[in-house]
């Protein structure tokens, strides 16, 4: 069967839908320029579970549940659900960990970077430049043989079902207001669209992104490696549709200062995203794509997502996360450590390949 969403028109349509949904979610209550942000929303969930105690960013975001389940259901339907594992799980965990630290220095994943730009936040432009540099460094490794190795079909098919069940459990804890869960009383964590609308929005995005392979990191990587603008046309349409809707809703405000949930420390906006872009490139997908793959049964991506949750917890517990006031006390340490980690991973893997090819 021909997959319409994998065509050029298909991916442009998907990008536009995601952009519109993001801005509508913002209109319905999600934080400013944060209608959708995978990193921020995972961070909020980590906080709601008490993994960190940053009081303003604790909420179980139903969008995350929706995106993963959307991908899960549609991949089941199209017989693309394949539980698999075994491709450098522990490396992926730490790539996710440091990707999150970088994202929280910048304050957003690539999805939010484009949404911030679409809202007029020019700091996002600096972040996106950092993202491009990070991805570029990743492609240098990839071109030199960097590879995390093959995954294999899971011995136990049930492995692929764990994450969808975890996501349902999170959602149930939200709707029944399970006592141990911590909900922000103020700040971005206290701003959210109605629960079921968020869930449905997530389901739609998850389904469409699964069919179209929508990936922000991949969109830039493919341009660099194969001069293929396919994925980028989706990401561009995502940003443009969000921009147009922001104009219509009067939410567009251009500038560097006093942007919502953002800071204007340029160097670290840049380097935070260099780290994230590099980590995503080495892991083969942006946070959104990792959620989608998790829904398809890719348990290595699940490990990456767990790395992101853990990274979010450390980020706030160790004062590495930024805030509108500026970067965190130890944000610089986290970013530099992360970049060094990614470079070591990249170099050791390409070195190993070179040695092997000499034999």
């Amino acid at each position, binding site marked *: 069967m021909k997959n319409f969403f994998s065509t050029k028109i298909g991916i442009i349509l998907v990008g536009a839908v995601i952009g519109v949904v993001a801005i509508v979610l913002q209109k319905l209550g999600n934080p400013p320029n944060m209608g959708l942000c995978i990193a921020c929303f995972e961070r909020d969930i980590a906080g709601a579970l008490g993994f960190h105690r940053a009081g303003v960013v604790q909420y179980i975001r139903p969008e995350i549940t929706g995106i993963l389940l959307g991908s899960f259901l549609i991949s089941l339907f199209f017989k693309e659900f394949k539980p698999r594992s075994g*491709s450098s799980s522990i490396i992926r965990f730490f790539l996710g960990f440091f990707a999150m630290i970088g994202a929280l220095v910048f304050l957003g994943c690539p999805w939010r970077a484009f949404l911030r730009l679409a809202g007029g936040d020019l700091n996002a432009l600096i972040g996106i430049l950092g993202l491009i540099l990070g991805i570029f460094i990743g492609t240098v490794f990839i071109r030199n043989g960097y590879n995390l190795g093959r995954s294999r079909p899971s011995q136990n098919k049930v492995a692929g079902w764990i994450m969808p069940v975890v996501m349902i459990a999170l959602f149930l804890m939200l709707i029944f207001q399970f006592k141990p869960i911590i909900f922000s009383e103020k700040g971005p964590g206290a701003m959210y669209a109605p629960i079921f609308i968020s869930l449905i929005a997530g389901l739609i995005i998850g389904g469409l992104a699964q069919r179209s*392979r929508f990936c922000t990191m991949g969109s830039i990587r493919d341009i660099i490696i194969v001069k293929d603008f396919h994925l980028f046309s989706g990401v561009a349409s995502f940003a443009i549709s969000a921009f147009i809707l922001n104009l219509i809703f009067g939410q567009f405000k251009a500038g560097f200062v006093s942007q919502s949930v953002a800071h204007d420390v340029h160097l670290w906006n840049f380097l935070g995203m260099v780290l994230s872009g590099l980590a995503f490139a080495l892991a083969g997908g942006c946070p959104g794509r990792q959620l989608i793959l998790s829904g398809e049964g890719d348990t290595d991506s699940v490990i990456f997502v767990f790395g992101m949750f853990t990274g979010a917890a450390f980020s706030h517990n160790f004062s590495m996360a930024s805030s509108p006031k500026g970067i965190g006390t130890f944000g610089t340490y986290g970013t530099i450590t992360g970049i060094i980690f990614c470079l070591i991973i990249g170099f050791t893997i390409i070195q190993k390949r070179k040695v092997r090819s000499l034999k």
Partner: protein
Amino acid sequence: MNQIDTRGLSCPQPVVLVLNEIRSGKSEFEVLLDSEASRENVKRLLNKNKLKFEVKENLDHTIYHVKR
């Protein structure tokens, strides 16, 4: 004839491997694929390079037989 086994490899490895093969100038090669995303990506790459290929469906994977 060269066979490029992309089974179990994640993005962008299948595309990178096929790209290297195209650049090496071999006149005939086969690509083994087991994920839908890879099938689409490699197909797009081959089409972009105006390479003709035959598709063989196996039980758990697909083979693109490329001949120029």
